[in-house]
């Protein structure tokens, strides 16, 4: 049975979905068999969430409402996990303090 899921989440990370956050995002996306895509608007354009080149190219700054959709095996789990990652600020809370 082919499932599909879709959700939105606000990016609160200071630099948006860039460099380090996008590495984490695509790594997590790749752990799911489902096809996963992101967009900055409900009507697209949609970008492959498993490609860091595409995710970076989406240029999603802080405050963006990120649309995530998935289809195929584990679609629901994939969307839930990715939304959760963005919500957790890519696990870069107070423990990631730059000293530079």
């Amino acid at each position, binding site marked *: 049975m082919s499932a599909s899921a879709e959700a939105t989440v606000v990016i609160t990370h200071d630099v948006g979905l*860039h460099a380090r956050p996008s590495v984490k995002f695509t790594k997590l996306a790749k752990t799911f068999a489902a096809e996963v895509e992101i967009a900055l608007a409900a009507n697209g354009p949609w970008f492959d969430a498993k490609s860091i080149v595409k995710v970076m190219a989406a*240029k999603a700054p802080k*405050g963006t409402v990120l649309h995530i959709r998935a289809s195929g095996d584990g679609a629901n789990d994939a969307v839930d996990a990715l939304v959760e990652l963005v919500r957790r600020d890519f696990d870069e809370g107070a423990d990631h303090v730059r000293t530079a």
Partner: protein
Amino acid sequence: MSGPLRLQGISASAGYAEGPLFDLDQTVVSYVGKETADDEKAALETAIATATGRLTVLIEMAVGDAADILEFQIAMLGDNALSSPAFAAIRTGLPADKAWRQALDAEIAGYDASDQDYFRARAADIRDIRDQVLRALSEDSDVQAPPGAILYGEDIAPTRFFETDWSCGGGIALKAGSTASHVAMLARSRGVPMVVGLGASLAHLAGTALLDAEHGGIVLSPSKVEIAAFRQSSSSFSARRDRAGTFLARPAVTKAGTMVRVQVNIADPSDVDGIDIATCDGVGLMRTEFLFGKTLPDEETQYRAYRKVLEWAGEKPVTIRTVDAGGDKPVPGFTVAEGNPFLGLRGIRLSLARPEVFRVQIRALLRAAVSGSLKVMFPMIAVVEEYRQAAAMFAEEQAVLATRGIVHKMPPLGIMVEVPSAAIVPEAFAEAAFFSIGSNDLTQYVMAAARDNAAVAHLNSVRHPAVLRLIAAVTAFGQREEIPVSLCGDAGGDPASIPSLLEAGLRDLSVAPAQLAMAKAAIADISV
């Protein structure tokens, strides 16, 4: 070339380096084309694998930011979306090096075109990825810089930074570059001196150079006298920095036990990412010109920028200056072209002349005020009517927000004391909630010496008795009338000027984040 040549840029990481110049832009890549498209494809695949392998070795040795950058590069290299246009071009008959360059240049152009600083700075990472694969494609091994060399070129790749042995000193001098680049970040955290924006291209790259990344300059073909003076500045800098490090985490106190508040000046919300709030007493000056880069910013963009800094500062105060465009900071579509811009429509004058733009900023500030301890100040106030007019606009916008039921708060409103008329007659401005002395502009207006003109640099000194007397008078007036007075010009972070400022009565300075430790160390040395 005879005689010394001096170039001026912007410091990206303070420090001193003396050493041979090494040309980063010499091209060593010479790829030999293959017989068939299949061979070209195989060559590119091998080169990508080689480059990835090298990065994997580097990542073993890297920590923190460095590891993050490498991991990002490895992830990009491993993504078919990056290489597929190159492989497609190879199928149409292009050699591997040209195909790869063409594909990556297209990607780089996308980053260069971004209106976000952070994103634009990633172009250097993609160039790095491009060049690593090109290097792997060519058989030539890379020419290594000699130990202690000053790397000079258009821009520098992060991998070049990692591969360089900085234990023998050395530094980075870039014609272009950015203080927000990954390498600038790394240079600051590792203490490697770095200057960007040197502009001019040098025909001749031999010999020793002196890199003064404390003041953002470089001297080529220096004379003996210059070398001696440079070495003195350099050892004084290292001594100061070593000592200063131990002062950063402590409150600033003079020898006599006088407490001095030391706040930071920031120009962009992301500046606070590198600062531990525990090391400073708040933000004494947040500039807002950065928001007015290419287009006039909307209320939401401004609100988010202000809120970010207020949330970072927590209970500590954040003083935001309303837009100070004009003078040497033109903004297309906002400032006007003038024969004498420093004496023209700049600062509050421009904001009052363009109320529709100013009101947007006012609303964003009123809304952000609920997120922390906000203070707002107006630049270039010359007469009290300007302050009253601006304060009235705050009251009007507050009423608008209240009617609409939008959460907001009225912050204390103060003025910059930087026009001589305000410094000479501070009592005319007694209704302002606080004074912040802008020593850069005050000095240039009192001395009639532009701060961007090297020919009159000797006149542009905050320590001239005329300037110091005004600072002392404003500070004394503030004390008498219980109006807080601080200073937020470059002088506040200059160890040579700090003694005079404290003697003038100031107990509240705001400095560039990089000068925080040095300023505290200098304060500890003063017996006021």
